[in-house]
């Protein structure tokens, strides 16, 4: 019974086929008609892809914070700033609310995203049943917040484009901003590729067994 229980539909040509039940390692299923790859829900590589993106984001998070993201020159004087020195300068200038925004949006949020997504992935892999509703909400918040970190990159892009008055005032983008943008994009993708119903997978399986 179990052998013919699972049917697979190819997403490309719509061909239905019987899923193989004894898949060995490194073996993947393909549509018998068009050859496109087909897979069962449990075989979804969502977790793997998310991990890959997440790890890439975590790696790029290092240069994003260590390299200067932007240089502001006024009257010929100025220097490249990393995110943290930029926030520090704002704080020094007495603009602590702005400093807080920069710090939270550019350092805390990406870091939190990295941690929450890792936490969700680990909990999925461990087939945890712990507070699934809250984890669901956590996931939605993460996904929603994701794009807003991009504001920084937009600000830099706009300033670089607008403020170019030679020696009087000039804003240059530095390599750090590229890696920062990459971190934001990668975490957004990671959040997107994470299948939230995997959180409920375990519950669903249990229900179908009963």
């Amino acid at each position: 019974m179990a052998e013919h229980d699972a049917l697979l539909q190819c997403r490309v040509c719509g061909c239905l086929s019987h899923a193989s039940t004894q898949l060995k390692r490194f073996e993947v299923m393909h549509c018998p008609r068009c050859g496109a790859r087909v897979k069962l829900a449990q075989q979804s590589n969502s977790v793997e892809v998310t991990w890959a993106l997440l790890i890439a984001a975590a790696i790029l998070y290092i240069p994003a914070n260590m390299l200067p993201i932007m240089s502001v020159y006024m009257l010929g004087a100025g220097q490249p700033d990393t995110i943290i020195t930029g926030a520090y300068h704002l704080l020094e200038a007495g603009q602590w609310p702005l400093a807080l925004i920069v710090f939270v949006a550019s350092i805390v949020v990406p870091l939190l995203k990295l941690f929450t997504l890792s936490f969700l992935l680990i909990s999925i892999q461990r087939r945890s049943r712990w507070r699934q509703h809250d984890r669901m909400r956590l996931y939605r918040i993460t996904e929603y917040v994701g794009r807003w970190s991009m504001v920084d990159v937009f600000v830099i892009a706009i300033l670089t484009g607008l403020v170019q008055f030679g020696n009087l005032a000039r804003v240059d983008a530095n390599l750090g901003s590229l890696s920062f943008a990459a971190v934001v994009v990668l975490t957004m993708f990671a959040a997107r590729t994470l299948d939230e119903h995997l959180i409920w997978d375990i519950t669903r399986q249990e229900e179908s067994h009963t």
Partner: protein
Amino acid sequence: MNDNKGLDDNLPEVEVREQRWPSPVWLIPLAALLISFWLLFQAWYQRGPIVTVQFSSAEGIEPGKTEVRYKAVTVGKVKKLKLDNELKYIEAIIELNKEIGRHLGSDASFWVVRPRVNRSGVSGLGTLFSGSYIGMDPGTDNDDQSFYKGAERPPVIAPAEDGKRFFLISDSLGSMDVGAPVFYKQLQVGEVIDYELLDNQDRVQLELFIRAPYFQYVHENTRFWNASGVELNMNSTGAEFRMESLISVLIGGVAFETPAGVAGGEVSKQGDTFVLHRNYASSQEKQYATRLYYVMYFDGSVRGMGVGSAVEFQGIPIGKVEKIDLKMDKDSLAVRVPVLVSIQPQYFDESLTKETGEIAMRKLVEKGMRAKLDTVSFLTGQKVITLSMETDPPPATIKATQFYSEFPTTGTAFEELPFIATDIMISLDETLAGINKLVNSGKLDKTVDNLNKVLAEAEQAVKAAKETLKTVDKDTLPSVTNDVNKISQDLSNTMQKIQGSMGQLDRLTAQNSPTQHQLQEMLEEVTAASRALRSLTETLQRQPSALLRGK
């Protein structure tokens, strides 16, 4: 269900393939890893050396802001400032660029560039806007070093400039500063690049840099003089005004020239030392190394003579007054005025040395050479010391004393005149007194003999007066008394006029004179203006928006 079952049976089995490769999505973290490695490596690779430079003051240096420039290219930045252990210096921790780091030698130099008045007017004007910066010269050798001592002044000479360095010895620095211009025919050809107080002498040594090709005009006999300020000379030949350039008036300067009529000699080598003359006039005097020092005592007043007054022989200056003093003998309470003069015997004969010169002077004195005061100009009352051969003088020699030899002097004709007049007065007075006495004695009435006697006496007295007056000048005998009166009247008139004009001159140059005051005011205003400019630029730097919106 059955339908489904039937359908089920017709369905093909899924095709199973082997895939040993992990999902291609893992290429993303791999790429990220490579990219961040590359980025960090590049950031690390492009980081230049970090050096510590010691300065005596942090004025104008701001950590994170002050740049280090080489040939106006930014090659580094001050990262941090800290005090050294003894709180004596500040240490600027500077991060340099990779390129400059490659050429950094242990002889590299660092200095702070602030706005300053200098040879070409004002230099470092850019620093008014951009703030001070640290200039550097990477040096030539390649030994790396991480600690340098910073200079407070920028080197005036760009390291690669072609030219020669010379030294000047001067009594005092005057208004000279590093960067003061060096002129040749009022063309700026170099700068003063350094100065120092010589250890063993109370003299200042200036170091000059003269650019190519002008250094070839510096010869062995070239004279350098201090071109600072304005030279105003008033003497018997009239008034003379000389000024090298306005800048040199403000900040000092040196000019040089090889005097006309003097063989230039060989072109000087780098590092040759010259004397810095006080002014143009003194640089044009013939320079003989041998100087003999004598002290002279004059009977009359030395008013009108000062340090630097000439010692002349038949109108040719051969020396000058070095010092005028007052000396009192404790026992006799006699106050004398020793005048120290220097004489260059080589004016008489260039082959004379110090020893032979002294012998020659001694012989000349034995032959009748005496020093006397001479008035050069009634207008200024200026006096010189004249050496002249007296006919039939009382014998005298150069007396060696404890310090300087004493040169015999004689009064001048002018000086003697009042004495002669007084003598005449006295003898006339005596004669009159004799007549008076005679009249009062009552003998006049008594006898004609007495009258005769009186007449004879009077005749004798007149004769005596005649005799006395004869000693002055036989030709001027009849008019001498009148003349003396007239002369003294004229003299006092002249003196009054002279005093009037001297007074005016005094007022003009006095400490609190309007001229001085105006100059000072002008300087103060310039200072105030530059201060205002500085504060404006500081405001602009802090809030550039002030340019648009106002403060």
